[in-house]
């Protein structure tokens, strides 16, 4: 782990933004112009496949990986090295090792999360799966190997719990984060399980959940067993972590080693439950969330049927509602944990997709929202990217 807390601020992006939209029935790419006013939709790719994540490699801005399965066929990874023109299937997709005779082995149901590796490790990727597994590729996603330091850790079973401890469509490993200063310094999130950290490239792991509530457990502050919905690390201040958790919005200064709930300053009628959390690319104190109703039986829709993003510009001390352009009532949006994203322009563009198949965009940091696509299948992920030339 490194001690420096910040690096220089990169210039704002100016190129055309594309949105990689992963859905329950395939993937789509929304291509915007440089002004982010008009959007053209291409797809579906992998029509009929459940695509949990479609990710561009920022190191070459050409390589794309898609985590896919169908409702009936096994999980796989598709790869493109030319920006999506041509696709090849991974030769060995993420899979757990075969168990010794007489023992029950784990089976990857689907790959849920994809993270390109550290800038110094070309062609390295990480994948998080359901049930919880961490996998690594060193050849651009063609072949995958288990990260046994996590998957076979002596405490794996305690940390991950059973299948009943996960989300409705299976427990997941997500939010694979890499310290931009140190390729061996990794974080992961698990639903359920909590946040975990490795400082040795994945050989060993430790829980990192101090200060974070897990109010659905007998001990509301356990060492592990939490439900982080989405965890983010700021690339310019990698010792600052944020998470949207099942039990609120949290921030951690890594040196302090304890999560601080910053969602308690949200309006009480809204609460601080949600799935996604999105960071400003150049200001670690600015972030957005998309609250959902986490009361009663957990509808997971916009509180009161009035969808809105909330932004803080002071690391969670205060929050402002951002709903201009969204339905003022009867708008029951659900925005999943990978389905909200920011571009790197100035002002920052924000994007989210709903389980009702709509994509919304704001080109002024949430000040005004417009619907830029509708009638798509249930949206699982939205990634804002800029392809290389």
């Amino acid at each position, binding site marked *: 782990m490194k001690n420096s807390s910040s690096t220089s601020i990169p210039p704002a992006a100016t190129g055309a933004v594309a949105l990689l939209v992963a859905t329950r029935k395939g993937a789509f790419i929304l291509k915007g112009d440089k002004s982010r006013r008009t959007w053209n939709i291409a797809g579906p790719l992998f029509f009929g496949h459940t695509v949990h994540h479609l990710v561009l490699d920022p190191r070459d801005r050409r390589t794309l990986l898609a985590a896919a399965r169908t409702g*009936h*066929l096994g999980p*796989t990874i598709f790869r493109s090295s030319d920006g999506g023109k041509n696709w090849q299937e*991974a030769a060995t997709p993420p*899979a757990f090792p075969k168990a010794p005779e007489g023992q029950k082995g784990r089976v990857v149901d689907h790959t849920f999360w994809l993270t390109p590796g550290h800038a110094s490790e070309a062609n390295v990727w990480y994948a998080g799966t359901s049930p919880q597994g961490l996998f690594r590729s060193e050849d651009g996603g063609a072949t995958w190997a288990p990260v046994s330091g996590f998957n076979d850790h002596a405490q794996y079973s305690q940390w991950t719990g059973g299948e009943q401890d996960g989300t409705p469509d299976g427990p997941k490993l997500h939010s694979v984060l890499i310290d931009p200063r140190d390729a061996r310094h990794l974080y992961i999130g698990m639903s359920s399980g909590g946040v975990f950290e490795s400082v040795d490239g994945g050989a060993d792991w430790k829980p990192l959940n101090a200060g974070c509530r897990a109010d659905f457990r007998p001990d509301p502050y356990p060492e592990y067993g939490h439900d982080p919905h989405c965890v983010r690390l700021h690339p310019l201040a990698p010792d600052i972590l944020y998470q949207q958790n099942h039990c609120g919005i949290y921030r951690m200064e890594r040196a302090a080693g304890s999560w601080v709930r910053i969602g308690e300053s949200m309006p009480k009628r809204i609460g601080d439950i949600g799935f996604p959390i999105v960071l400003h690319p150049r200001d670690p104190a600015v972030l957005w969330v998309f609250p959902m109703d986490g009361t009663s039986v957990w509808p997971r829709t916009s509180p009161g049927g009035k969808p809105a993003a909330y932004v803080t510009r002071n690391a969670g001390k205060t929050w402002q509602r951002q709903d201009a352009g969204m339905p003022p009532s009867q708008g029951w949006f659900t925005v999943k944990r990978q389905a909200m994203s920011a571009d790197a322009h100035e002002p920052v563009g924000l994007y989210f997709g709903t389980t009702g198949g709509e994509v919304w965009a704001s080109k002024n940091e949430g000040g005004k929202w417009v619907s830029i696509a509708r009638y798509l299948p249930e949206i699982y992920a939205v990634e804002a990217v800029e392809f290389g030339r």
Partner: protein
Amino acid sequence: MNVLIPEPLRSYTEGQRQTEADGVTLGEVLQDLDRRYPGIRFRMIDEQDAIRRHIRIFVNGAEVRALDFALGASDEVFIIQALSGG
């Protein structure tokens, strides 16, 4: 021997509904099928060598659930994918 491929897997067999594969057990036939059409086996068989939940395999009309099931050269393997959900 003849292997009949269900429609969802024909992207691997260039659209062919029927193909050839060799082996003296069902497992060997599926390995040979994967050699000819890389990736097809893992969509049907998981990493613990279990037939996936919605896949059914019939040999000469009878369902087979074990990969060590012995096959003869004239047997016909019929792979079926069940559909459910929306």
